[in-house]
């Protein structure tokens, strides 16, 4: 698939930045406004899906190869588990909000507040974005009947 016409390519190359920034905003302000890690991650993935539909699969695979997306996915899951285990080590119980209770109370309604909740949002956003991007990429690579017979 070589992509769509030049109109679609130009528009989507402008819009992709806005979609990506909106996803980052949804993730970072997840503890203050509606949204959060899951919705922001899906928005990040959908900006790459827009690029894939407009420019073709090879363009996206050059920008964000499948192994890199896999590493981002694992990094997000690892960060989320690390926050939980740090709560067990420092705070005394699994998933306790140790940053808010001990070290960084922050000011309510400001960006730096709520302890581990923004960090968990970032981890989940990374994980969900990378994994949904991988789903779309893998599904578009897969062709029934073709895979596995290439070497013969």
């Amino acid at each position, binding site marked *: 698939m070589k992509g769509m016409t030049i109109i679609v390519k130009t528009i989507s190359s402008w819009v992709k930045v806005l979609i990506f920034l909106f996803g980052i905003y*949804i993730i970072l302000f*997840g*503890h*203050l*406004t*509606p*949204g*959060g*890690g*899951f*919705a922001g991650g*899906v*928005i990040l*993935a*959908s900006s790459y*899906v827009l690029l894939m*539909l407009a420019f073709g699969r090879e363009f996206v695979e050059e920008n964000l190869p*499948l192994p890199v997306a*896999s590493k981002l*996915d694992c990094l997000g*899951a690892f960060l*989320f*588990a690390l926050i*939980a285990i740090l709560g067990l080590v420092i705070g005394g119980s*699994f*998933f306790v*909000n140790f940053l*808010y209770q001990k070290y960084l*109370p*922050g000011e*309510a*309604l400001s960006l730096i*507040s*709520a*302890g*581990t*909740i923004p960090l*968990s*949002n970032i981890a*989940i956003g990374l*994980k*969900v974005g990378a*994994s*949904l991007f*991988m*789903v*779309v990429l*893998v*599904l*578009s*690579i*897969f062709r*029934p009947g073709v*895979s*596995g017979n*290439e070497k013969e």
Partner: protein
Amino acid sequence: MAIFYILLLFIIIAAIIAVETKHLLSAVICIGAVGFGASIMFLFLRAPDIAITQIVVEVLGLIILIRACLSRELTFISGPREFFGVVVSVAIIFVIFLAGIKVFETLPDFGIPIFAEAPEAASQTYISQGLAKTGAANLVASVILDFRAYDTLGEATVLFTSIIGATVILRKKTKKLLEDPDE
């Protein structure tokens, strides 16, 4: 309140069309109509978090489904139905219908939160002390990432495992685990 029933009627009609139509692309678009109707309903019920998540996931899922419909040869499964299977499924649907009537008698009216009828519910604690105990202004974030973070951990694990399965099954190059002895 009338807007809810109009939306419900729209969703039900779209769902029935999605089941009954023969054209697969029309069925996918009707499923999308169901999802967007649900997200508008969440918005009117003052749940913007769920509305955002619903509409975003719906868009991504529709893109995947429509691409799958456009680029594949479609096979329709049809044929005579077995008598025993029809009887069993009708009986199960009837039992679920009766149980559903019993359940819906206990629920409050549509659009009224369930903790309005249970003052000692745990959600009252979340609402009154969520900001003081977690510091998050968005109460939904404080519930899913602090009070009920185990649920989010399970969700992340399910997503992680399913992605591993998808990448292993659908990959392009197959790795040979065992070498052929002839070669």
